[in-house]
């Protein structure tokens, strides 16, 4: 009985490990639903393309007007399950930058921080988690 239990646990651990590896193997390419944790969780679209260690993408950040977003192009790198992305807001009143750092966790989700900055100092520094958008037929 004990042996059976041990075997079953080993199999489950192996299945869990394969599942986590498979999620990691997908890399970062895809559409991610980011939840920026400000006063409440703000949903933000992050679309990434991974080519080896090189990353490119677009993040659609909400503006001060409810229901409107601005697309910001991003470039960055991905290594050892951690990544950094940066970009700047086109046409902003003052130079505004965005930096997204994070890692791909065991559940296949992204987690990290988003920092917005400008010439007058940081505009915001928020943690986030991001879930890959479900594939639809």
């Amino acid at each position, binding site marked *: 009985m004990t042996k059976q239990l041990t075997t079953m646990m080993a199999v489950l651990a192996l299945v869990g490990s394969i599942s986590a590896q498979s999620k990691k193997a997908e890399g970062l390419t895809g559409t991610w639903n980011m939840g920026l944790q400000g006063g409440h969780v703000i949903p933000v*679209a992050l679309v990434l393309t991974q080519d080896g260690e090189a990353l490119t993408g677009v993040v659609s950040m*909400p503006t001060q007007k409810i*229901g409107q977003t601005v697309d910001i192009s991003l470039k960055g790198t991905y290594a050892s399950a951690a990544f950094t992305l940066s970009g700047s807001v086109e046409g902003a009143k003052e130079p505004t930058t965005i930096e997204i750092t994070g890692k791909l966790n065991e559940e296949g989700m992204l987690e990290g921080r988003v920092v917005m900055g400008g010439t007058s100092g940081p505009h915001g520094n928020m943690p986030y988690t991001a879930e890959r*958008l*479900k594939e*639809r037929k």
Partner: protein
Amino acid sequence: MNALSRRSVLKGMGATVALPFLEAMVPVRRATGAAPAPAPRRLVCIEMVHGSAGSSAIGVKKHLWAPAAIGRDFDLAPTSLRSLEPFRDLLTIVSNTDVDPANPFTAKEIGGDHFRSSAVFLTQAHPKQTQDGDVQAGVSIDQLFAQRFGQDTAIPSMQLCIESVDQAGGCGNGYSCVYTDAISWAAPNRPLPMMRDPRVVFDNLFSVLKAGGTRAERAERLAEDRSILDWLLSSVARLQKTLSPADRSRLADYLEHVREIERRIQIVEARNRSGELRELPAAPAGVPDSFSEHVKLMFDLQALAFASDVTRVFAFKLGRDASNRSYPESGFKGTFHETSHHSGREDKILNFATLNTFHVGLIPYFLEKLNNTPEGDGSVLDNTVLIYGSPMGDSNLHNHKRVPFFIAGRGAGALKGGLHLKAPNATPLANVMLGLLHTLGLEDLERFGDSEGAFELNAV
């Protein structure tokens, strides 16, 4: 003695008033020896936006929406449903279901939850992202019911709301305001407009303009504070002569009820036209500033419509996404949108639960009204099913998981009631709605929205 038809009406120059159920309508069946006609089934679909405190992780643990126990021995005391305790035998609470069609399907749809969700609640279909006229969702549950069972009444279905729905064009994230404002869809491309003004609802119920009355006559009636009943005096007197004492009393009670509701609308209109500062300055004169007064007036109109069998189907939208309205009557003064974004903090979640409890707390008023409206050997409530819920779950996360939902009423014995059913994880709410439609007589319907099968609502 000639029997009175169920379709008989009282007619005056500017109004038509349908009759309540009277004993004089029964002999038609008795005389012909035909089997009694089945009781008319009625459906009321109520949507509240922004989910519930009980859909958050802390709210689930504290049973702020769904009770702890599954089956019949559930305790409503910790939940936002506690005001429904006197009606617990009529309740079928279904917890742990999801509304996946309200989720974003593409990158461009991310962030649009507030502008998309209401179109999903009764359709369980994913809306097309557009700000133009090519809107697309699905046929809503109330309309499927009305298309099958609402064709024998003067009005197949009615759509009511509490908040402003007057915005045109796009509301946000590329979505037409129609998706935010309409919950009832007659076809995937045909959202039905909602009525916010109790005066408009009243006039629709009693065909004030259609029955020979002109706009000038209506304006005259409004200006003089006259009642539609003034136009029906001779018609009422003629009918009274043919009725039994019991029916005369029923008719008098009913007409008094019509008059009482009309009087309340007139009081609201007079107050709102007096020049006093209004809380809702942009709202029509017939709309009370008080949320509960408005909701109760709308419930009274629905009860009246059922009593006179003018319609058997209502869709009723209690809120509007991202509304910053406050509900001081609840005991908490914070605004709705901000309170619903509780940051996952327990104290804020409890504040949101206070608002949820207040909203649900208005439902017993309606159930009591229906229970006090006689029909056959029972009441209108016996033949009515009400659903209440939201297309959102945890509004702080803008997700659509563990959405709040319950059914009240047995629908002429179709539902056992007195049950809390917990669905397996990831069960679509559409399964529950399909199960309900089957139970109510649409057994031939194979799918509804993103349903994967019909949820059994009478299982213990």
